């Protein structure tokens, strides 16, 4: 997660959330659908930088469990985050059911950038947010859930996801560490 000159992790989270779109807005979004095991997630295409192959991921000592490590994409180091750890769905990954290799979906909010591991990318869809929130209470980085082709899809709020990941890590971003 690349960040700017922000102080503690709490402050950085607040700043990231402040920059995020407020909840409760009703608007049409272009979403990219990705699958992780049996779970479906959706990301705003504007928050996605690129989709890359999941190459070698270097684990970081003392990193929390949802941080898988770092990888090199286009010459820059990107933190690889495990959605399954963050959503509490351990063991979601199952490469047997997918034809493609695992993907890394690189998302950015402001200066913060991280990569999410996805088993499959299932294209794009248009979705009007703020209308059909269903299900039990959701994590704060899940904006809402909706049904797509009989699959329950969790719409991830990228700023909050990044903020949560930073908050859970309790460490400065690698960029901050490098700058320091």
């Amino acid at each position, binding site marked *: 997660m690349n960040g700017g000159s922000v102080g503690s992790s709490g402050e950085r989270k607040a700043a990231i959330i402040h920059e995020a779109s407020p909840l409760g807005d009703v608007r049409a979004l*272009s979403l990219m659908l990705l699958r992780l095991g049996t779970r479906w997630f959706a990301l705003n*295409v504007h928050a*996605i930088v*690129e*989709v890359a192959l999941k190459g070698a991921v270097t684990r970081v000592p003392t990193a929390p469990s949802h941080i898988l490590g770092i990888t090199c994409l286009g010459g820059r180091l990107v933190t690889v985050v495990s959605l399954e750890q963050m959503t509490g769905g351990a063991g979601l990954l199952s490469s047997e059911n997918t*034809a*493609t290799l695992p*993907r890394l979906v690189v998302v950015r909010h402001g200066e913060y950038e991280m990569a999410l591991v996805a088993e499959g*990318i299932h294209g794009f869809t248009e979705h009007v947010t703020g209308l059909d929130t269903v299900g039990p209470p959701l994590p704060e980085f899940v904006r809402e859930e909706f049904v797509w082709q009989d699959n329950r899809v969790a719409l991830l709020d990228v700023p909050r996801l990044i903020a949560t990941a930073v908050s859970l890590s309790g460490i400065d971003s690698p960029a901050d560490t490098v700058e320091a």
Partner: protein
Amino acid sequence: MRTFGLRTKLVVTYTGLFLAFTLAFAWYLIYRQGSIASQALETRALGISGILAKLIAPAVDLDLDKSQAENSLAAIKEHKDLLYVVVLKPDGSVYLRHAESRMPAGAELLETTTVTRVEQRGELLHVFEPMRWNGKDIGTLAAGFSRQSITQEIQTSTRTALVVSGFILLIGFLAAWVVSGTIARPMLELATRLTQLSQDLAGLARSQETASTQQVGAIDETRGTMEVMLASAQQIAESSSAVLGNAERTVNGNREVAHRIKELNNHAERVAEILAVIMQVADRTDLLALNAALEGTKAGEAGRGFTLVAAEMRRLAESVMESVAGIRRLMNDMRSASQSAVQAGHEGIALSEETSRSARDIALVTQQQRKATEQVGRSMDDMAATVTDAIASTRQTAATAQDLVHAALRLDRMVGTSGSRDRLRDASPEQNHATAENSPSRPQSE
């Protein structure tokens, strides 16, 4: 027709011989006694006549009184055989006449003679004794003697001879009975034994001939079986040779199949590598199309066409990947199948090699079996020849035994009694034929 046994014959023969001997003995004895008695009577008659002639001669010459002559005659006229005395003169006239009352009438025979002579007529012996005195013939003394003493002597001799002959005949009969029994009994037993033995021998020969004939049949059947076995062994050898060739060809074919499958595996590996490359390219293509679609989507309405093209490219890439995945599954199936085929080929090679070894063993065993069968066939031929010779010998033995039976029966007829013949008739060869055939073993009596 009733015939008599050897003992009877011997008894009859010996008895006949003894009877003939005793008859001859009796005849000889009677004849001899008669002859001796006649000769004695004649001697006595001649003596008496001579004495009388000499006693009476002086009286006749001197023509004396007859009383002197009768005195001379009285001394001997009491002789029991003397029946009459007549003294004739040379002219034939009777000088003296003396006759016993017991003399038959007309029995006198009065003849003159110059030499002493004796004449027998009837029961009388007539003696004519010339009478000489001082060198001249003075007459003839005719005397008649009774032959009754001779008859009595002959009768006595006859009785003696008959008694002696009867005794000798009895002794001879007993001796013949004993001797014939001594001779006939062993011969009869021997003949009976010989008959039974010959019958047993004939029966045994017939049984042996039957058994040999059956043995020849069995040998022929065995020889036929051996020929069938030989043909079967030949056929098995040919079949095993064909099996061996097929097994060797199968081994080579399996090795060729294994080689081909190995090559196929190599090709499959190459295909897998190519598929991996295709998969990688398709995955990269999918990724590029995804990013392109992402950018098109970000561009909004302006990038919609770009998004559509990118989506289509993604679908193509995903289709390629799915196809590659299907090909991979097929390749895995092919790999498994080829591995199974290789395994089956190896097993087939092992089985074919085992089949080859078995076929070689079968060929070897069949060859040995064929040689053994040929050897058995030759042995059967030798055995058949031997049995045939044995049958001929047995038939000859049977014929000889039959001749022996007939000879024994003839001997038995010759020496046997009716009782023994009845016993032997019960054990005749014709009656014993079936018994001998039914019981080939030697009888218990042997």
